[in-house]
């Protein structure tokens, strides 16, 4: 089943909605503004009735997998259940209807919530302060690197390099490059952990920071983290923590204690704010004392129970987005933390680690396991063992979609060929994990008996595999003026 575009369903006869009239004595825009200031042709928005619109979006909704219906074993993405109470909290009029430029005295509850959330996140990751402003994880990474750069500059130290492990998330090098740093890669050793020898050889007085996630993207805890921290700090560099994998150890250990100076968190991963089909998220950044002066403005300060926004921070890197961050997401994350409590968060992480190790065990005979266990909250398997049958990680992923599971993260981290990265999270019951393991077994068996069936997957979804190469060719043809179809948008035939 596919659904036509709203533009294709548009009917000229559909009247617009009933809206208030101006009901005041005033001129029309065309009586006041010069003709060249006015729009010549109305925008080509569709014309549909409300029932048509509601059906259109209901049909689109039915074409999505979502955490509300499917298991998302999506490594590195921490797809947990999004408690519905979070949503109820965020839409309270006392939050949703607040204007960002209301006077401080009228938004004490909002500021108190931000302050409490900051304190809670500080407790979870072991830092001094947290900025809630960044809108997403990558935005948080970049914010942290800008603070680290400002810190070095404040000491008259113009460091130019940032070290990034070869197993790192792609946003790490991108964020470093966009902060004006030269990116230097650090290799993983045979055990999947960062190579201390390689790190040693890359550290120099030019290095501003090492970006690291722990457990790393292979789901392995960097056992030598304290040595790594000492090596990095000995050269005057800072240690940055990519918080994508924070769900592994809440209440078990803390990045701040490991020696990390800056820590970003993804509220949409660890703290259950919904992914929304790709945002909005929130990517707060926690820092140790050395970096506090450089936090974005404004910060939330509390004295004698009164809360205020502090804009007077002379060493601040400035503002990284408008207003105070994705406030609505902050409310959701706060609701989650309040409901869970310290004990609940710690239990969540322990359950996540248990689930990952259990599932790893269930499929270890079916797929390659390039690294020794135990793992933390996720593990990386490899479909390399299916190569003789011509079956790839992509085929396994698509076959899982046909069996009503979302696919694991595939081809990441880059250091594992045919990687299949699985993160079950604490959300899933043993039954679900068993069902997933059974699906993997079935797919591996099918790889041997009927590999073509896997190449043809998915067959039970609105569309089969889409030809990306042909799509890219069509886009090129459009961009080079050789074709009319813009591919990246709908266009009316006669226009």
């Amino acid at each position, binding site marked *: 089943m596919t659904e036509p575009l709203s533009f294709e369903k548009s009917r000229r006869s559909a009247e*617009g909605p009933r809206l208030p009239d101006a009901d*005041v004595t005033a001129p029309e825009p065309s009586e006041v503004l010069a003709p060249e200031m006015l729009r010549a042709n109305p925008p080509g928005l569709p014309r549909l009735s409300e029932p048509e619109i509601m059906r259109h979006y209901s049909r689109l909704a039915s074409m999505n997998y979502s955490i509300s219906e499917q298991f998302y074993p999506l490594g590195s993405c921490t797809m947990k259940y999004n408690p519905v109470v979070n949503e109820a909290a965020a839409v309270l009029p006392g939050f949703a209807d607040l204007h960002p430029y209301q006077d401080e005295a009228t938004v004490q509850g909002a500021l108190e919530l931000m302050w409490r959330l900051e304190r809670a996140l500080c407790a979870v990751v072991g830092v001094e302060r947290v900025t809630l402003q960044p809108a997403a994880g990558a935005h948080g990474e970049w914010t942290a690197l800008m603070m680290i750069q400002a810190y070095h500059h404040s000491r008259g130290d113009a460091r130019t390099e940032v070290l990034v492990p070869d197993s790192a998330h792609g946003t790490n090098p991108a964020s470093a490059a966009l902060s004006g740093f030269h990116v230097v890669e650090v290799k993983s050793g045979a055990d999947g952990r960062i190579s201390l020898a390689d790190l040693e050889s890359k550290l120099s007085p030019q290095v501003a920071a090492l970006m690291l996630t722990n457990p790393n993207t292979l789901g392995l805890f960097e056992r030598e983290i304290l040595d790594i921290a000492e090596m990095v700090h000995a050269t005057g560099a800072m240690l940055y923590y990519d918080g994508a994998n924070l769900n592994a150890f809440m209440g078990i250990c803390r990045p701040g204690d490991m020696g990390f100076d800056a820590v970003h968190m993804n509220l949409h991963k660890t703290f259950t704010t919904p992914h929304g089909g790709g945002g909005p998220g929130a990517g707060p950044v926690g820092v140790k004392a050395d970096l506090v002066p450089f936090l974005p403005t404004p910060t939330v300060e509390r004295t004698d129970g009164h809360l205020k926004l502090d804009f007077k921070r002379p060493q601040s890197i400035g*503002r990284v987005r408008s207003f105070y961050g994705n406030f*609505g997401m902050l409310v959701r994350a706060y*609701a989650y933390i309040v409901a*869970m409590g310290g004990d609940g968060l710690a239990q969540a992480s322990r359950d996540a680690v248990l689930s990952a190790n259990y599932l790893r065990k269930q499929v270890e005979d079916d797929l390659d396991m390039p690294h020794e266990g135990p793992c933390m909250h996720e593990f990386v398997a490899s479909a390399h063992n299916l190569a003789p049958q011509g079956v790839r990680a992509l085929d396994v992923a698509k076959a899982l979609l046909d069996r009503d599971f979302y696919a694991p993260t595939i081809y990441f981290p880059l250091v594992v060929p045919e990687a299949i990265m699985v993160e079950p999270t604490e959300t899933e019951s043993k039954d679900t994990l068993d069902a997933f393991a059974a699906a993997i077994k079935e797919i591996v068996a099918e790889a041997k008996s009927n590999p073509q069936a896997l190449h043809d997957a998915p067959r039970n979804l609105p569309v089969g595999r889409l030809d990306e190469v042909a799509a890219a060719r069509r886009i090129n043809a459009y961009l080079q003026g050789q074709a009319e179809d813009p591919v990246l948008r709908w266009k009316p035939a006669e226009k």
Partner: protein
Amino acid sequence: MLAAIGVESMDDLLLDIPSSLRIKTLELPAGLSEHETMSQISSLAARNRVFPDRLTFRGGGVYRRFIPAAVAAVTSKPEFYTAYTPYQPEASQGTLQAIFEFQTLIAELTDLDVANASLYDGATAVAEAAMMAHIHTGRKEIVVSGYLHPEYVEVLRAFSDGRGLKVRKGTEPGPKTAAVIFQQPDFLGLLVDARTLTENAHAAGALAVACVDPISLAVLAPPGQYGADIAVGEGQQLGLSPSYGGPHVGFISCRKELVRRLPGRLIGTAYDKEGRRGFNLALAAREQHIRREKATSNICTNHSLCALAASVYMTYMGPDGLRQVAEVGFKRAHALAARLAALPGWEPAFPDRQFLNEFPMRVPKGPAVVRKLARKGILGPLDVHRWFRELKGVLTFTCTEVNDPRALDELVAALES
């Protein structure tokens, strides 16, 4: 489960963590029941003062508008709000098609060739546009013309610092200028001569970046009509609540020649073996998970759910509805401006300039006026002196379709009292 794994205790799974790093407890209060959770959060919400939408005359980038019930009915569908980023297109066609429609709606509204899947907010959209212009022209200076939203300028400066760009306020682009950025209507609500600004930018070999109010484009000339290269803006007015500043949604669209420089996600059509049309992430080679440090931008997500809300809003309104709300705001603001100008000592701050639905007045004792209105339950105008020293006593008022004529009467009566 432990037995299946082959360990005796949970702690056996955590042996890689040095014991010196293990903490005994997480220093946070114990968990609460749902009822207790909501009651604690509701009490925080109750400590905020909510002004009725009809008595809100404050804008400055975030506006109270009528939001059709259809918007929440769609965005609260768990199939949309609990879905992941659409990396598996076959299982994400709903999100992908909705965002493809969003791209088309924004391209139509701005009258430019292609729009992306959305950005975080208007401020980061401005910064991303500056980066595009820098990459495209190889130049390092960004000229900000007129009253661009002061927070957008701050974000632009922070982004520029990392990338070695210089931000200069002024009107005259030079040989080093990558982009001239202007806001239409500007932060004070005033209309600028977008065509001349665009022509001047082009004459200097720079790109013209128009930061626009999406609702205004139902009435005002869109960026494509006056030749701007990139349009950006904040989409909060398209069906999103103020929510103390976020989450909202940034948008960006551009001419065909610049499409490869667009940051963030792009959705395009693609076909399966049976010839069925679907939607998929396109031009992904620009993005960080492939390009890593060579990526166009580090943005790895968009504000998908907010873009969905904006799509529902625009589809619900259609061309006629959007024009209607734009005109109602225009007329009510003009009616209000005339009445305010009659108050003793009050005058338009820029009498020669035109506006749409937000306008600046110069008044005696601005801060006292705002305080007095708050005492009467009115969220009064925005005192812009906070950002601009030359604008002492200047307050900007906003009217939209939610400020009914009686609300205007109440505002004027409160000011006269």
